[in-house]
């Protein structure tokens, strides 16, 4: 019962179901607090915070180009975020979305370059989708099986597999899959045209965004309206009740990890087929990790993930614009992004938990009186 001095006389209590209104207010207040804090830092380093914020906002959302770029970044964040969310629903802490994304990209590239390079687009794109979901799914399956049958922590195994996947991708593009005409520049040859996802007008927004939106709707339906979704919910909320009801625990762990990986894999496919048109280095600037934030801030809700992915993408694009248009030091944008995220996550904790003033040792008696 010993507590740090700061919390003396208070205890932290979980809010059973935060009212929607307070969530909105706290989110806005968190954003505001972040902007004020970031503004202080900017002012201290001799910049005008208002100019910078304005530049960020207009960079991300101020014109069609900015909005389009934000949507481009939304796509992988959304797909990988959905993958993370479905696993987290079952209390499976899959933090391997990054590796699963890479493996999806690898399998999609394999399909486009070596397995069916001559196929027409209406066939090749679906084949690449399937390949990417199989690749990402397999990469999620490994920690799933290790967890289901050997009790190995999926946090550790899925994280370690990220490095394996990224290094394997590096091996392919430096070795067997390297484009011989690229003058030693690492990367596979460009995909055949049929493998390119259609784009929206002159922007870089591509069909992958639609994959993300459809996946969000399907996932919502799956979790909400199917027996399997119900089982995932029960297993996540009370595994012992799931055992009591005779639900197939091990099988569901494996399948959910595979589904989680498959969605991240689809994010990888949409990046290579929609943006790069080849498998290259640094395919993802950490989408798989940002996906964890997306899932968490969305409270693991598929539709919420759409919104959060868009906001996070706007933050990234706004920051990038800053660097380009104002020529600010490279560290400013990540500092602001970090500040905003930090405050948002902090505010999120405030909506989930609250501080309650206590009379001393109240904890003991509430434990006693808790209904069995």
């Amino acid at each position, binding site marked *: 019962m010993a507590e740090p001095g700061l919390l003396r006389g208070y205890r932290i209590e979980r809010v*059973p*179901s935060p009212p929607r209104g307070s969530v909105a207010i706290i989110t806005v207040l968190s954003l505001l607090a972040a902007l004020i804090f970031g503004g202080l830092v900017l002012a201290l380093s001799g910049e005008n915070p208002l100019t910078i914020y304005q530049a960020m906002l207009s960079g991300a959302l101020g014109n069609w180009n900015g909005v389009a770029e934000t949507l481009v970044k939304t796509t992988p964040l959304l797909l990988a975020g959905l993958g993370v969310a479905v696993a987290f629903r079952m209390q499976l802490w899959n933090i391997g979305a990054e590796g699963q994304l890479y493996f999806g990209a690898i399998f999609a590239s394999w399909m486009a370059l070596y397995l069916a390079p001559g196929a027409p687009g209406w066939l090749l794109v679906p084949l690449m989708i399937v390949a990417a979901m199989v690749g990402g799914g397999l990469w999620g399956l490994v920690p799933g099986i290790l967890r289901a049958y050997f009790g190995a922590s999926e946090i550790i195994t899925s994280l370690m597999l990220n490095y394996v996947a990224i290094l394997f991708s590096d091996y392919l593009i430096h070795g067997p899959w390297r484009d011989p005409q690229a003058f030693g520049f690492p990367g596979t040859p460009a995909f055949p045209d049929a493998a390119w996802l259609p784009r929206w007008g002159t922007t870089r927004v591509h069909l992958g965004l639609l994959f993300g939106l459809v996946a969000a709707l399907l996932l919502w339906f799956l979790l909400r*309206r*199917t*027996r*399997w979704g*119900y089982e995932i*919910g*029960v297993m996540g*909320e*009370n595994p*012992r*009740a799931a*055992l*009591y*009801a*005779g*639900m197939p625990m091990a099988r569901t762990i494996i399948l959910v990890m595979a589904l989680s990986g498959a969605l991240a894999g689809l994010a990888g496919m949409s990046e290579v087929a929609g943006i790069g048109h080849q498998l290259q280095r640094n395919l993802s600037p950490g989408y798989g990790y940002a996906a964890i934030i997306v899932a968490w801030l969305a409270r693991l809700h598929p539709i919420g993930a759409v919104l959060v992915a868009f906001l996070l993408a706007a933050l990234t694009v706004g920051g990038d614009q800053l660097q380009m248009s104002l020529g600010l030091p490279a560290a400013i944008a990540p500092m602001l992004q970090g500040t905003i995220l930090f405050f948002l996550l902090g505010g999120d904790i405030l909506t989930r938990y609250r501080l309650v003033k206590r*009379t*001393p*040792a*109240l904890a*003991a*008696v509430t434990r*006693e*009186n808790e*209904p*069995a």
Partner: protein
Amino acid sequence: MSQPSAAPAIAMRGITKRFGNVVANDQVDFSAAWGEVHALVGENGAGKSTLMSILAGLYRPDDGYVEIDGQPVQFRSPRDAIAHGIGMVYQHFMLVDTFSVAENVVMGERTGGVSLQLPRVEQRLAELGETYGLEVDPRARIWQLSVGEQQRVEILRLLYLGARILVFDEPTAVLTPQEAHSLIRTLRGLAAQGFTVIFISHKLDEVLEVADQISILRRGRIVATMPAQGTDRRELARLMVGRDLAPIVEDPAHSPREATITGDTILSLRNVTAIGEKGVPALKQVSLEIQAGETLGVAGVAGNGQSELAEVVTGLRRTTAGAIHVAGRDVTNRPAGEIARAGVAHVPEDRLATGLIGSMDLSANAILREYGQPPLAQGPFLSSAAVANFTDSLIARHDVKAPGRWARLRTLSGGNQQKLLLGRELSGAPRLIVAVHPTRGVDIGATEAIHAALREQRARGAATLLISEDLDELLALSDRIAVMFDGAVMGIVPARGTDPEEIGLLMAGVAPEATAHG
């Protein structure tokens, strides 16, 4: 230690305590004299624990005050209360298992600097133990002690710290009948020495045995205070609930027990052995049979294999030897879902930990057994309409008080949670019902409803394995009672005509042969 004072030892005046909109104590006046055992009785949620937590310094009242010996006092913490001589023994002991008795006692002391001065403490504890009949080896580690001895440590600790007013929160709930008797003698002895003892309980026999004065709390108010002489269980029960109850114990002579038993064996266990949480055998060669229409009660002090028995029968724990058959079918080590589909209903020991999902809504909880069957399931999909119908009818049929099917389960009271769970489990007309502490932590009204439902099932021809720590409940509902001790069945006795004392001896591990000689 006598207190020559006309003022009551303790007086609580006009105490009001609210939690949000709930008034837990409403203008309560309560007093107890020196040298008196004062029992505080009431249903769950009547406000007993809140009132005593105020006395022990855990809560501060919203209104009203406490007097000791006629002097108003204010407590900011339990330590303040102890300094004024008030100490509380909780149901769950606050002891560190790996520490010795003396080490546990000094934990509550703040004087004496860095040195623990254990020899001094040990000597003092030995003296106190001798004076008050609470002998415990001060150097023994807590884990080496029985539950009854651990409780003595709690009492000794309070005496050591100078408490003169001792509050006991349902102290006999964890004890064997023998240990309970010994405790009651100790409490009488303390009162005779001038201590004030406040005794919270809902076991009315015990209250009548130990108390000088009885106060009854109902819905946060004291409804009566009377001497124990001249009242009886029936009057107390009536005051507690505010109406007459169906007698808790059925009159055995009028009970149509054997009438329902048809002779078909529904559950049979042959030499079943299983390993418990701690890796040691929790069930040792358990054999028993239950017939259709029969209720087999299982008695025993907590932790003697009853929980594991329920778990192996329902598929939540693996057996290491032996065989389990349900209606002739071998279900040994089959998955829980398959056993449930074979017609086994399970009211588990800890409903929120096992049988329900507190964070999900009522419909998600209602469909836990049936979600895979039509009409709830339409292929891989769940039919929202069917789920809503199913839940609403369950709520209506079993009188579950809830704002609606969308309410989170955790927001319901314990009794309503249990009614929902029981209703769900009984809805499939089960052949076997495994009910573990079905009325623990639920109020008397819900208890009656649950008992009635179990009786109805028995009349319908269901076999019931009823595990309970409440002997009255077992005697009222069972045809036979199996007593467990240390993972084995010590004996199976008919519920009718068996002396509860005999069951108590079996619970303490005294085999029938030994009783005959001793």
